[in-house]
Structures are given as C-alpha cells and as structure tokens.
C-alpha cells in the first residue's frame, strides 16, 4: 500500500503535535485502510513519542508538552491496539515501576511509564507511595526483569536503598535489575545504593531499560504491544 509510509508519518506528527483528535482519527483511517496495526503503532505513534522524548531532552518540550503528546499517543493506541494480530506480544520484557513510599509525585514515574510502554516494555505500575517490600513481592511474582524506582523527594530516598536490600534478602538480586530516577537522584547516589542504573529523564530511561535487559535497538521491540 503506497499510503502506509505517509500515514505513519502523519501519526507520528500528530503525537509530536499534541493532536489527540488527529491521532485518533488517523488511527481509525489506518484500521479502515487495512494497515497493519502493529506497524502503525511502532512506526507511527511510538515514533512520535520517541521524537517527543528527544525534544524533551533538548529542552524544547517540557512536562506539559510531553503529557499532551502522550495523550495523543494513547488516543491512537486505544483505536489500534484491538487490531494487533494475536501472536505478537509473547516475549515482552517486564518492568515493575512505582514511586517509593512517602512520595506521591508521580509525574516523573508516569512519563517513564509512557516512554517505556511506547518502546515495547510491559509495565506493571504500582502507583505512588509504594512500600519497598511491595516492589520486591511484585517483581518476584510477576517475574519482572526490572524494577524502576522514582522519587521527587529527598526525604524518601532511603526507601530506594531498602528495595535493593530486600531483593538481596529474597535472593532475587541477580534476576532483577534496579533502575532509579527522579529529581534528587543522581548517578552517584544510584551507585552508592547499589542500583544497576540511573537515568536522568524519561527518554534516557528507555535506553537504560534496553541496556539492562539486553534489548537494545528497535528490532528488539518486535514483540511490542
């Protein structure tokens, strides 16, 4: 179909342009025209979200813009997701994510979730104000590859270290990677508490998660959505 590439570009642009209605109607057009839903998501919506993430890193976009882009992406996903062929999605890498106990600022965590989800990770979102033990229980029972910890408050950072201690006590430290982020967190803090990685923003979190799970490169997200 000659139009596919153009449609992917339009979907991507609708996401970058924060055009929720546009993303939804273009997605309906993709379904109507019989375009492969997975490709429309991957090369259209997810591509747009990746571009939005890049603009965020370049400080062209800020949190308001990134949230609006994600609204457009999800508006398109809602239309396209039911049309994905059933066999894809079997072997996704799983990330348990949440805001550590004592903090309910979840913008950062939600942005990381959005970016990871649009990059093909399976996300278990524990929400905000999550006790350290809960991260570990969920990671083990859900067989997660990664725990992603976020906080915006310096007052709650001890909880991050606790998660790693609990993972060790449970004998699961070698199976689960731990990545941390959030305003007051830094690379050296991450090193100090023994985390596997730190990312300074949501776009970087995607690269880090890929690195930690050995799924670098877009070809590795073939199982996405």
């Amino acid at each position, binding site marked *: 179909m000659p139009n596919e590439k153009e449609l992917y570009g339009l979907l991507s642009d609708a996401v970058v342009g924060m055009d929720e209605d546009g993303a939804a109607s273009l997605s309906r057009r993709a379904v109507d025209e019989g375009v492969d839903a997975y490709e429309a998501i991957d090369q259209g919506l997810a591509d747009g979200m990746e571009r939005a993430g890049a603009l965020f890193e370049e400080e062209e976009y800020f949190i308001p813009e990134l949230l609006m882009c994600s609204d457009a992406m999800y508006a398109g996903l809602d239309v396209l997701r039911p049309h994905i062929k059933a066999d894809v999605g079997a072997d996704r890498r799983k990330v348990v994510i949440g805001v550590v106990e004592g*903090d*309910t600022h979840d*913008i950062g965590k939600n942005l990381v979730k959005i970016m990871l989800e649009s990059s093909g990770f399976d996300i278990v979102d524990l929400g905000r104000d999550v006790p350290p033990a809960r991260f570990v229980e969920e990671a083990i029972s859900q067989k997660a590859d990664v725990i992603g910890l976020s906080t915006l408050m310096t007052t709650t*950072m001890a909880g991050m270290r606790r998660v790693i201690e609990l993972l060790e006590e449970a004998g699961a430290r070698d199976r689960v990677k731990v990545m941390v982020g959030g305003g007051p967190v830094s690379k050296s803090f991450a090193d*100090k508490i023994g985390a596997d990685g730190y990312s300074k923003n949501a776009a970087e979190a995607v690269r880090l998660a890929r690195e930690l799970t050995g799924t670098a490169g877009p070809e590795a997200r073939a199982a996405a959505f």
Partner: protein
Amino acid sequence: MKDQMTPLERIAAYNKGDSVDRLPCVPIVGNTAARVTGVKVSELRGDGAAIARAHVAAYRLFGYDNIRIFTDLYTLAEAMGARARQPEDETAYLEAPAISDEGGISSLSPADPRRDGHLPEFLKAMDMAMDAVGKEVPVTGALTGPFTNASFLIGAEKLSRLVLKNPEAVHALCELSLQSALAYAEAIIGTGAAPSLTDPMSSGTVISRRQFETFSFPYLKRLIDYIHGRGKSVTLHICGKTDKIWDLMADAGADCLSIDNEASLEDAKLAVGGRVRLMGNVRPSEVMLLGGAEEVREATLACIRAAGDSPKGLIVASGCSLPTETPFANIHKMLDTAREAGGGRVA
C-alpha cells in the same frame, strides 16, 4: 570550634560587608528536627508547640543561621481543601487534590490562616520560636509558591495539561493560591517571622522559561512585593534545574536564591551573583544522608570555593531540605566546615 556571633549578628554584619566569624550556614533541617526532640514526625504536624520545640532544639544543637518552620509543602493547599496524609513517622504527602477538574475551581476560596487546616498551629510554632530565640536567629515560615500550590489544588498532571489546554484555569488557580499565600504571609509576618518561599513546580525541569514567565512569575512577584512592603527580605527556593530562570527569579524580587544541587552554584554566581545572594547547594541525599564526614566537608568547601566570593554573598546550605534521617554528625560537619573556612573565601 565555637561561633563568635549569633546568627542575627552574623547576618547583619555580613549584609553590611563587615567581617564575620564564618559564612552563614543553613543545612535545611525539616523533619530531622523531630529526631532532635525524639518525637515521631506525625507528632509535629498539627501541634505548634511540638514544632517549635523541635526546631528550637535543632537550632540550639547545630547552631545554624535560620530556623524554618516547616513540615511539608502541602499545608497551604490543605487549608484550601486538599487532603494531606501524615504517615506515622515520615514526611506528609498529598493524598488528594482539592478538586478533580476545572469545574471545581468556583468552589474554592482563599485560606484563612487563622482558622483553616493546620495553619494556626504553624503560626503558633513561629510565635513560640520567636519568643524562645527570635532575638538571636532569624525565624522563617515555609510558604509554598502559587504555581506549586495550584498543582496541589487540582493535581500536578492536570495542572500541567491545563497550562496548554486552558491557561485561564491555571491563572484562576494561581490567583486563588496567591490570595491564600498573601494572607498567610501577612499572618507569618504578624508573628515576627518572615516567609520563606518554595516553588518546586516552577522548576525548569518541569516547565519552560516561557511557561514560568506566564504562570509563576507574576504571582511570585506580587507575593514578594507584598513581603518587601512589610519590610522583610525573601529567599526563593526552586528545585531542580533553574539556570534558565535565574534572572526571572531575581526580577521577581527575591533577595536570595536557594539553588538546588541540580544547578551550578558557580554558574549562578556568574549569572545573578551581582544581583542576589545565593544559597546552596550540598547534595541532601548522597552527601548529607549517605556520605561520611569527609564527603560533607569536601562538598561544603566546594560550595564555598564556587560562590564564597559571590558579590551579594553566599549562605552555605544544602541544595534542598534534608532527608529526615540525615545523621546529626553530618549536619554538625557542615557547620564545622563553615567555621573552619572562616569568614573569608577559601583559596
């Protein structure tokens, strides 16, 4: 080593350009004060006398240069209908905003600080701290900036979207927040204390310079103008990256910019050090909470090296509020390092 001056004597001399025994030093002690009096964090919130006891005791123990009556950022929004949750022994947090969408704005009204939420208890704490040590140390009351308070009224993500979708609603929430802040500032000044402004949502990590100009600046400026009109100077703390808005923070009238550890004190000195005093910026978590004495000393000296010669002066400080469990030894070490460095610049 012992201090030769009281904090008020030191600040007065420093402001005049006279010699001081050491640079002013403020490890920003929040709920760590509860550890000093051996109470649970939850015993502070809502009990002005307990807050005053803890902060006066912490000041006496460490000898820093500013008492800040503070338990968390949500007290003003709580007085306007937001719900804060106080865990037994951790810092309180926002459980639910006051309203769930723009339709609720008309139901909101400015807080009455003498009646609403826990504000009367915070005012009582300021009163008591002023009575106890107000003749030797500045006492301040934490006041949340209007844009940040607006985010607690409707939720941070909702507010972020409204910035683009419905700017008028954001202005309405900021205006309501400003009216509450003005009333609280008036009451704080009435106790003899001074408001100390914190506005984390206005961070350059969250919104753009243009969005700051539109939604943060006008309200901060009106608030600071009022406080100046009452004869008090203003410290403004904004978390995260702020390098793109330092000039605007100074334009808004702040006398002292409290610089987060995510930003460079040296860059701040070069950019606005000739206009405003700087404060900062030892890392609260990895250095103050987790570091050893030598790390605290190094980081404190690094701040003094970076901006000890800033034209309008430097307050050696942590980059943000200290985590509750920060070891006392590290807080002592920050002060001791400032004493060791003395009044001048370290070479």
